[in-house]
């Protein structure tokens, strides 16, 4: 299979990242994640909305109804100030974690 499924938890990060680039409706979030991953990532459509609602409930996303490209009413999500702070913090944690994992996983026997 050419596409990877998204781990639970990382979905939140992906959504926050996608929305941090500009307000998007739900379907737009899906498209943008697929687009920036070069179609490498497949997001379960069923789990997208519960995640969006949860993030909004937690106050990291806010939403407004607006016009989409072909003049249909759609709900646009944007990052709140609080969400941005949170995203930056999570990002830093993520980077540290992945550095750590990378260095652990690349350890060779003679280095121990």
């Amino acid at each position, binding site marked *: 299979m050419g596409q990877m499924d998204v781990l639970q938890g990382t979905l939140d990060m992906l959504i926050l990242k996608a929305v941090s680039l500009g307000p998007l*409706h*739900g*379907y737009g979030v899906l498209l943008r994640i697929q687009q920036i991953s070069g179609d490498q990532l497949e997001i379960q*459509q*069923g*789990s997208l*909305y*519960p*995640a969006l*609602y*949860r993030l*909004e*409930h*937690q*106050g990291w996303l806010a939403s407004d*109804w607006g016009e*989409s490209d072909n003049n*249909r*009413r*759609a*709900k646009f999500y944007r990052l709140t100030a*609080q969400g941005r702070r949170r995203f930056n913090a999570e990002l830093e944690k993520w980077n540290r974690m992945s550095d750590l994992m990378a260095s652990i996983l690349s350890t060779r026997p003679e280095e121990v």
Partner: protein
Amino acid sequence: MSLPSRLHSFASSLFHRAELDRNMEAEFRFHFDKYAEQLIQSGIAPDEARRRARLELGSLATQKENCRRSLGLRLWDELIADIRFGVRMLRKSPAFAIIAVLSLALGIGVNTTIFTLAKSVLLDRLQVPDPDQLRLLSWTSGKNFAMESLWGNFSDEGGAAHSSSFSYPVYKALRNQTNMFQPLFAFKDISQMTATVDGRAEAIYGELVSGNFYDGMRIHPALGRGISPADDVEGKANVAVLSDAFWARHFARSPDVIGKTININLLPVTIVGVNHPSFTGAEMSRFPEVFLPLSAQPTFLPRGKTGNLLTDPNSWWLQIIGRRIDSPNVSDSALESALDTPFLQVVKSTVTIKEGHDDLPHIRVQPGRRGLDYAKEEFIRPIYVLIALVVFVLLIACANLANLLLARSTARQREMSVRVAMGASRMRVVRQVVTESLLLSLAGGVGGVILGYLLRNLLPRLSSNPWEGIGLHPRFDLYVILFTLGVSVVTGLLLSIPQAFQGRREDVSSGLKEGTRSTASGHNFASKALVIFQISVSLVLLFGAGLFLKTLSNLRAAPIGFQPDRIVLFEIDPPRSRYTPEASLPLHQKILDALVAVPGVQSATLSSDPLVAQDSSINRFQRNDRPKDSKAEAWENNVGSNFFQTLQIPILAGRSFSSSDILTSPKVAIINQKLAHKYFADENPIGKTFNKEKYEIVGVCGDTKYEDLKSEAPPTFFLPYTQSFEANVTYEVRTFATGAEILKSLQQAVATVDKDLPLIHIRTQNEQIDATLSGQRIFALLTSAFGVLALILACIGIYGIMAYTVTRRTNEIGIRMALGAPRSKVLRMILGEASILTIIGVVIGVVTSLFLARLVTTMLYGLKPSDPAALSSAAFVLVAIALVAGWLPARRASQVDPMDALRHE
């Protein structure tokens, strides 16, 4: 994660459910359309595209539910579903629902009623701003205290005297003494004043207040102005503020009342204001109707040696209240020490201190949020007993309902098993049970609030005399509703406990099997425990009913020593503003003459204390021919010359009083047998003298009850009222017939002497005696009613459990009979089971009763709290009724046809 944003989103999704739904649908629809569009563009056929889009996105309902869960709405959604389901289940068996809600409403309602009463006795505060800042001053001292004359509350326990009465000079000296208090203010409740409006005289309750009282309490009259410092000056004191009730009664709430004149104790005062309905004086449970400045005392209510208490440092009568400054650093004991030194100074410099009476008082600072508070002392014990009673009633109602619910849940076992089998967690099933119980108990709680509201004045009415009005006005407010809510929730949780436990025992696979009975033992055990509990609580209540009924009948049967039939009592209180003590003697003589002249009157007399009316005067008793004994005392009563004839009290030795015992003749006294026995033993008391007035004993009379029926006749001496100055007296008039006409003639007779004198508290001697029994009557009534209720519920319980047992064991009984067991044996077997339950319940009940009965010892008369007759009759009644309740199912069991029974399975 910020809490406010969560709460906001939670709340908005709760309250805008429809909008949330619409928005979700629109959003998913948009997504679906977009996705389908994209698929079509990538070359997939429209139908196939839509099918794939639907598959990927999942069903709309699932999506919605998942999103709602993300919003933290899951618990809420499940709760709503549980409630809907519960309501549907109850609708399916309306008879059960009605019985359950009604029995709970009864159980909760009586609790609400008693709580409302208890709150007014124990918790309610004066309706003034910041009542918690108020402090009531009082003093304690050794028992040989220096105050010569005390008017007001006083207690003498453990060798220490305690009172909240102060002299006016002390108040004046302390008023601005410390800056920890705002200026102290003072008041005095006057239990009897005569108010004359439009020529009609009426006895009312009044209050004297200092000029800064309204400022200190921070209250404003509803109309006009309050008493001001400018009024509190002698000579300017002829102003009055009315209570809302008095205003409504006499002036129909007309605003023109300001500036009108009424007479108080026959002297005119100008009305300057009307109090707000919420302010009913500075004493809890008393309702003064006219407020006068303190400076009115010498003119309107002369008292004491000179008539003027304001200048008398030896008369202690005034209540002092302060509003403390709001500072957490100042403790009440700091307030005490700040006031104690100046207090001692003013006591030493003003009070005449005599030898032997030289214990100096110390100031005490008490909470003043309830003002002067007699109600608490008076009612606290009965209230606790009432609370215990109603809690028992609620527990019985709960037990009964829990049993019904258990039976229902056995019937619903399959449903529960199906739920568990379909993947519901145990917790989820228990939650459903709790929700249904809470639904019932909250509905019962609503009924309870209604019942409590309807009954709120019942007990105060039962406990008060028709001629004195109601002493308690329980406030039915938000706290009562909150209390009822709390009780309902606790009740609901209690109700669900047995079912929840049963649910735990359940085994899913066996629950699903047709006709299985594997869990019946679990149900049986819980039910049996509940029945035993019901029996024991019923026993406690029946035993209590027995104790109180016996007390009541003992009191009624107690010899009182005089003949109370056809005696009319009323008080006359000639105001000292018109009658000096000397002038009141001929007044009373004139009234007596007028009364005797009324046709239908057999004889008339008067006394300073009416008998069996909770009045008493205690005086020193010192034989002149014996060394001084400062502890010797006796009860005193000042009576008319034919007191003994009128009340038919026998004179056992010597003579009765006669009309020749007058002010100028030698002072005489009659003693009762008790006193003769106590102080003269075998000597002949006739001719002996006592006390410094050298009263000569001229007769000995039979013993009579004095204060109430409960106390033994105390040693008493009687003095002729013509040789003492007793202003406020009670008339005893023996008539040939009773009825309203004779009362009218009596009133007219008094009016011929002085039309401004109201007849106060008119009642018959028997009504008077009955009134002292109100407490016992209430308890006898309530315990009997609750006891019978409990008995009925327990019967239903026993019947239910035995009937269930018989149904369950029909098969077994059939086998037994087929194998040759006689019917009588089957009958005995079932009855035996019922008896075991009953006996266990009775034993537990007896032990509990004996333990609890000790708490009501002081409320009983003529029997011990462990009265064997009451206990055994309660036990007997219970066993008998329980056997009858068990007999019906037992008979049915014995009439089982073995063939039918074996086919039954």
